[in-house]
């Protein structure tokens, strides 16, 4: 089984890419309304390969005693305790090889080192989980899109973008090198941009795509700086250990004792050495904060969260796939992957936790008053991503596995909710404002039921998956000492209440109350076709059971804990992992979830209640309602702080370009015609005149020769 890993790792990204290429080539002319086949088949194959990869990795996990499966690791970790985790690295080829690219000084010695980018894929539990999750959700979304995008003009274009996205995302989580991570980080950003602006005739969609791209640029800039700092600090950007060429190695932070191996950032040798192998202090904090800035951009965390709600302009399957389940979790994945780096800086960990907690609370408050169903879900996504970062910010094995577990369950229930919202939107003729429809329970029974399951899961209803993953995060925060984490715990618990409330507010407004159907829907508002309802049902079943399955078997945390980066923590921190359930937290959050649901029911069930209006008026009176409705004025503040000054600078630059630079250039451009005009009379077309010129020239040359002006001739 383990010997299949290289093949599987290559197949997983390759199949969607091939599907995308086939669709792009044949879609517009030949396949037309069958354009979904290459993509669905490609992603299905990719999913099968990813599932096989999970089993292959599980099969390759070391037994309890120390037994390393890594390729190039020596026996350097023999003296450490605990399992080193499992990784298998597959190098496809080497790219951009520059021998002796830079000088490295160590003490008095200077030596040149090579630069090269290894096109390398890796298989470890973290990658396997991400790959299976991404391909599974992508497959369901692709099937759903067959119904949702039916008869769209850009049908084939949509599917080839989806294939490209799945390729980029699977590569993003399986590469073993920061340079390639960055490349595919940008590639998923590109796919996101293309798909947000999919209906590019709509000005708001085009603007939203641009906004997403530009805001992500800020984060990516930080990410790039972080990579530069990593390179200058460690001299390598590989995750894994690599064999060094002869004589090109300097003894230093990145080199093993015998000098034959360049230690990767998360390679077995470095991880075995423990915290001593990582630079600490200000440099570590700077690296982590820059990486975190990149993660904030991609995962829509404060202060770069503003693009995600606008990204809902794209088709709903895209919102479900890219902006809820997969791409936005890239930041979480990256921070989880860089656990050892973040472990080296307590300040950075606290920053991650703070950003996560603050974003969760802030987005939860905004979601309370939004009236656009997809935007409620978008803010909910921002809020849940905040939860994940909160878990990662705890910096413990429990926190990181909890964050990743929440990522995993969130992918199911948030994709489910978005697809359900898409189903409603499909039936309502594109209307998504929850004030304009209501009482859809009778018309759309399947959507109603699956949406209900999704809402319960998101709200953290006991025994559903969201309940367990959220509890683990709360437990991880509660375990940490100090007032800082206590405050974050309170914020997270309050956010859970908000989550339950706004989720069920949207649910009740959509499916209960008097039946209200907007005129855009026509007379035949109906349940969505089977290609859309089947993915909903599958996702609903998954959302309901994955949590309890993994909670009972404890399989997720144990499996994920075998990732080298995360196993590092348990090896070097001697952290005690609490087995079993956190009863007290579970009880608290069950009460919170039920309270939130009950509050929403009191306000909006079976119809909008006078209490809701009263609360609304009271909140309006003190200005809180507007504050939430207008999203804490972030857009306006950014407009004033960044957009206007930039527009001013742009206008000034434009003026300078027009009036100073262009005029100078024009002035220079005028010189040749002026000189030409002066010489033009010489060209009068008379043969004798030319002859005189030639004879005079001849005389001058003769004179030069005779008078010894050799330089002239």
């Amino acid at each position, binding site marked *: 089984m383990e010997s299949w890993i290289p093949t599987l790792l290559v197949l997983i990204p390759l199949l969607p890419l091939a599907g995308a290429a086939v669709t792009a080539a044949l879609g517009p002319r030949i396949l037309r309304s069958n354009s979904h086949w290459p993509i669905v088949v490609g992603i299905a194959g990719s999913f099968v390969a990813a599932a096989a990869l999970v089993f292959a990795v599980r099969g390759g996990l070391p037994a309890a005693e120390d037994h390393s499966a890594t390729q190039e690791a020596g026996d350097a970790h023999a003296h450490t305790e605990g399992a080193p985790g499992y990784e298998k690295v597959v190098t496809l080829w080497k790219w951009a090889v520059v021998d002796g690219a830079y000088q490295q000084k160590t003490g008095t010695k200077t030596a040149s080192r090579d630069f090269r980018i290894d096109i390398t894929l890796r298989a470890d539990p973290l990658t396997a989980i991400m790959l299976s999750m991404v391909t599974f959700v992508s497959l369901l979304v692709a099937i759903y899109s067959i119904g949702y995008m039916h008869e769209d003009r850009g049908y084939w274009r949509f599917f080839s973008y989806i294939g490209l996205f799945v390729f980029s995302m699977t590569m993003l989580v399986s590469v073993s090198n920061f340079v390639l991570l960055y490349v595919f980080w940008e590639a998923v950003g590109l796919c996101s941009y293309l798909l947000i602006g999919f209906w590019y005739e709509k000005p708001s969609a085009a603007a939203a795509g641009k906004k997403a791209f530009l805001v992500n640029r800020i984060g990516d800039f930080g990410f790039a700086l972080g990579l530069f700092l990593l390179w200058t600090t460690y001299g390598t950007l590989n995750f894994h250990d690599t064999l060094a060429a002869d004589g090109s190695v300097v003894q230093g932070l990145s080199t093993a004792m015998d000098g034959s191996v360049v230690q990767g950032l998360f390679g077995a040798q470095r991880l075995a050495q423990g915290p001593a192998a990582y630079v600490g202090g200000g440099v570590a904090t700077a690296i982590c904060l820059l990486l975190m800035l990149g993660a904030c951009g991609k995962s829509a965390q404060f202060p770069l969260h503003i693009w995600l709600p606008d990204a809902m302009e794209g088709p709903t399957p895209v919102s479900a796939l890219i902006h809820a389940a997969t791409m936005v979790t890239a930041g979480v994945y990256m921070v989880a992957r860089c656990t050892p780096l973040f472990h080296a800086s307590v300040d950075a960990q606290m920053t991650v936790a703070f950003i996560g907690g603050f974003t969760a609370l802030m987005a939860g408050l905004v979601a309370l008053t939004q009236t656009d169903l997809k935007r409620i879900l978008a803010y909910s996504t921002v809020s849940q991503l905040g939860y994940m970062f909160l878990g990662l910010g705890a910096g413990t094995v429990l926190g990181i596995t909890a964050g990743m577990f929440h990522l995993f369950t969130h992918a199911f229930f948030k994709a489910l909710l978005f697809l359900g919202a898409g189903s409603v939107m499909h039936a309502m003729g594109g209307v998504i404002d929850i004030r304009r429809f209501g009482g859809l329970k009778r018309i759309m029974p399947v959507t109603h039921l699956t949406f209900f399951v999704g809402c319960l899961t998101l709200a953290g209803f006991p025994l559903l998956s969201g309940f367990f993953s959220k509890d683990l995060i709360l437990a991880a925060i509660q375990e940490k000492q100090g007032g800082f984490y206590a405050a974050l715990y309170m914020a997270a618990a309050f956010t859970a209440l908000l989550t339950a409330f706004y989720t069920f507010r949207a649910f009740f407004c959509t499916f209960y109350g008097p039946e209200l159907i907007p005129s855009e829907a026509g007379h035949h508002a109906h349940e969505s076709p089977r290609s859309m309802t089947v993915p909903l049902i599958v996702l609903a079943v998954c959302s309901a059971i994955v949590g309890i399955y993994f909670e009972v078997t404890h399989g997720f945390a144990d499996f994920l804990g075998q990732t080298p980066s995360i196993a590092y923590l348990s090896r070097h921190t001697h952290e005690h992992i609490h087995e079993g359930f956190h009863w007290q937290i579970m009880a608290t959050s069950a009460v919170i979830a039920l309270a939130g649901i009950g509050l929403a029911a009191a306000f909006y069930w079976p119809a909008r209640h006078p209490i809701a209006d009263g609360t609304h008026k009271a909140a309006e009176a003190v200005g809180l309602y507007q504050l939430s409705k207008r999203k804490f004025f972030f857009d306006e503040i950014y407009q004033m702080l960044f957009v206007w000054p930039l527009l001013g600078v742009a206008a000034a630059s434009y003026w300078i370009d027009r009036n100073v630079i262009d005029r100078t250039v024009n002035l220079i451009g005028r010189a040749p015609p002026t000189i030409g005009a002066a010489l*033009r*009379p010489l*060209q*009068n*077309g*008379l*043969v*004798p005149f030319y*002859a*005189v010129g030639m*004879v005079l020239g001849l005389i001058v040359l003769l004179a030069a020769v005779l008078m010894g002006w050799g330089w002239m001739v």
Partner: protein
Amino acid sequence: MNPELALLNNYLVVGAILFGIGVIGFLSRRNTIVMFLAAEMMLQGISVCFVAWSRYHNDLSGQMFVVFIITVAACEAAIALALILMLFRASGKLDIALWHHLRESNQPGFVDEEIPEPPADGKPAWPHLTRAGIEPKADPGATDYRSKV
């Protein structure tokens, strides 16, 4: 001076004279055929020099060049005469100054001054001299007849 050198000198002088006559003829005449003949004369002057140097250095390559020059001159003569013939057919004149179409587009064309007709009585007209002591007044309108340009 040895006889060889004296011989060379004589020939070079003849060549220079031929070349000089050619240059002067080329510059001073407007008749295309005459100009063409003048150009040929320059070529012959150069050829004579070549032959003289060839003789002096006892090196036949100079004479080889002359054979080439004569050949090229023959070809050139064929083309030039054909060209002159075409030009003559187009305008009926051999005056080179009529053909100045290759000038810059915004340059004024060459305008030939008319040669005044001789007076009917056939007597030459001389410029009117004013009395001494007073500045002569120019008569801008009148163009005096001269039998030679």
